[in-house]
């Protein structure tokens, strides 16, 4: 069995510290021993992160894991309590404005300017970056088109639907043509069509060389978008790797899902333990982790058990997440 990354991490930090004085040229985010506390509470508990130029990097984690707190530190709006942090090669303590000038930020909760129209939101935001008006006007028109809000351009923001506001926030984050885009749960609240459209756009931005850093609760989003991701839990990094690596390391090839009538799931778990590498008991089903799901399914039936449903599927990030955090993501 492979050691969880968090156990080996401390040793690795010491090792690296001996050689590293700062980020490499292509490391847009470089954090070592990054901590954030609010009073007595530790939200981010000494994490190491490296995000390379052009990469799509994801934070996956349950509520309260410290994803947003980390994102705000990377966005140079929240000072780190401890640890070393370089963003775009610079120190956010001294170079906050210069760093923020080259970032695009989509915060978890929309903070659009409610007193302005859709278009004015983009215009004034561009001005905050010191971009000339004529240039912003052209970009605003393109961006409104991009997020399909051209028809609402001259409406006030307030009455827009939640999804529309989200799209406008995303358009706003692009007004300064950022080198790196920080997206805190970008597609929460979007309908499936808008989500897919956004993934497509993000993918194209990435092809143009824009670095993406995002947090998400959606496994499919993480699998679609992220080259590399970390699973965060209780302020720490529990695992790190590409989606495929994580699945390879923390899960089996296949999963057998069994549903017994309500209340019986737990009781059956013990009798089936030998059929799988590992068993997870969820309130509504049992998950049997094994490299050969069909064989396990046959064995279950041979033991005279008759689950209400039987499903064999490939492992996903969801399983990795469950293994590492002991929680399933509710989506």
């Amino acid at each position, binding site marked *: 069995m492979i050691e969880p990354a968090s156990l080996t991490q401390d040793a690795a930090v010491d090792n690296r510290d001996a050689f590293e004085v700062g980020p490499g040229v292509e490391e847009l985010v470089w954090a070592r021993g990054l901590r954030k506390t609010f009073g007595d509470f530790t939200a981010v508990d000494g994490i190491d992160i490296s995000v390379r130029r052009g990469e799509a990097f994801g934070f996956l984690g349950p509520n309260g894991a410290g994803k947003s707190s980390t994102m705000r530190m990377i966005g140079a709006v929240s000072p780190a309590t401890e640890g070393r942090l370089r963003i775009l090669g610079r120190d956010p303590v001294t170079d906050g404005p210069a760093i923020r000038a080259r970032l695009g930020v989509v915060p978890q909760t929309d903070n659009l300017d409610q007193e302005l129209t859709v278009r004015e939101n983009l215009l*004034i935001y561009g001005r905050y970056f010191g971009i000339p008006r004529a240039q912003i006007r052209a970009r605003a028109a393109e961006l409104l088109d991009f997020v399909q809000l051209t028809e609402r351009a001259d409406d006030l923001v307030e009455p827009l639907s939640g999804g529309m506001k989200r799209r406008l926030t995303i358009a706003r984050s*692009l007004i300064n043509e950022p080198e790196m885009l920080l997206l805190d749960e970008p597609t929460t609240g979007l309908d499936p069509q808008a989500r897919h459209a956004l993934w497509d756009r993000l993918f194209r931005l990435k092809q143009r060389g824009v670095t993406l850093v995002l947090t998400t609760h959606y496994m499919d989003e993480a699998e679609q978008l992220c080259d590399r991701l970390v699973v965060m839990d209780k302020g720490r990094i529990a695992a790190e790797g590409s989606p495929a690596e994580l699945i390879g390391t923390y899960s089996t090839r296949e999963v057998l899902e069994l549903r017994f009538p309500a209340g019986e799931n737990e009781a059956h778990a013990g009798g089936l333990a030998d059929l799988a590498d590992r068993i997870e008991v969820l309130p509504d089903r049992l998950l049997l982790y094994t490299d050969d799901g069909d064989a396990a399914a046959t064995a279950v039936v041979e033991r005279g058990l008759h689950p209400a449903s039987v499903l064999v599927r490939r492992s996903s990030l969801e399983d990795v997440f469950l293994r590492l955090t002991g929680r399933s993501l509710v989506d």
Partner: protein
Amino acid sequence: MSLSPPLQPTVSPGPTRAGLSSTLLARVLPMPLPSARRASLLVERNLLVYRRGWLLILSGFFEPLFYLLSIGIGIGALVGTVTTDAGVAIDYTVFVAPALMASSAMNGAVYDSTFNIFFKLKYAKLYDAVLATPLSASDVAAGETTWALMRGALYSTTFLAVMLALGLVESWWAILAIPACILIGFAFAAVGLAATSFMKSWQNFEFVQLAILPMFLFSTTFYPLSVYPEALQVVVQCTPLYHGIELVRSLVTGIVDASILGHVLYLVVMGALGLIIGSKRLATLLLK
């Protein structure tokens, strides 16, 4: 969409001497100084909002005008003349008008820097969005204060024009009443901003009223300081609006002496303190 690929390569800073000492400086200094260019962007934002709501702006002008008409002209007809603390007998309307001008500068600034800022801070989350751009908390504080001053300047100028039309201006010194009102606005806007940063809920704004109303009524607005017993005179002389009113009154009536320098100093110090505290508090509130 034409999002071009990023141009500048990122240069790794390395732990140079300059890098270290500037880090040290930033850690020692409470916060970066505001930049005039960046602060002006917040003014631009407010102009954009008021382009639609310019009628709202007018309301700030009518209030002092109504006071002037009712108290100045109405009561003035009954009172006749009043002897100022400088010992000069002047027409009551001439006495009250500059006080109303100064009070309205205070009112406008306080309203802008308390209710408006509180709303933007707690509900609209405006500054959270703004601080994700190159603007910093001190730019926000400077920008909002500047905006309050611009409105104040507009009101003061129109009010002075009305006074002129009513024959209530006695001296060329009166021109300086406009910058004087801007100074009053600055002092109160900055302190208002600082106070707002401590407010937890709308109920706390009762305190604002509690501070503003007595000042308006008792700071030699309607009668000279000599009316009070000695001890109370000292209390009144400690309040900021007293200095604002005396400053504007001496300019508009042309009864000018060195005491105006004291009034100016009081207001400058008050504004500077307010701005420093307000910027710091904004930074702690927003940069969590």
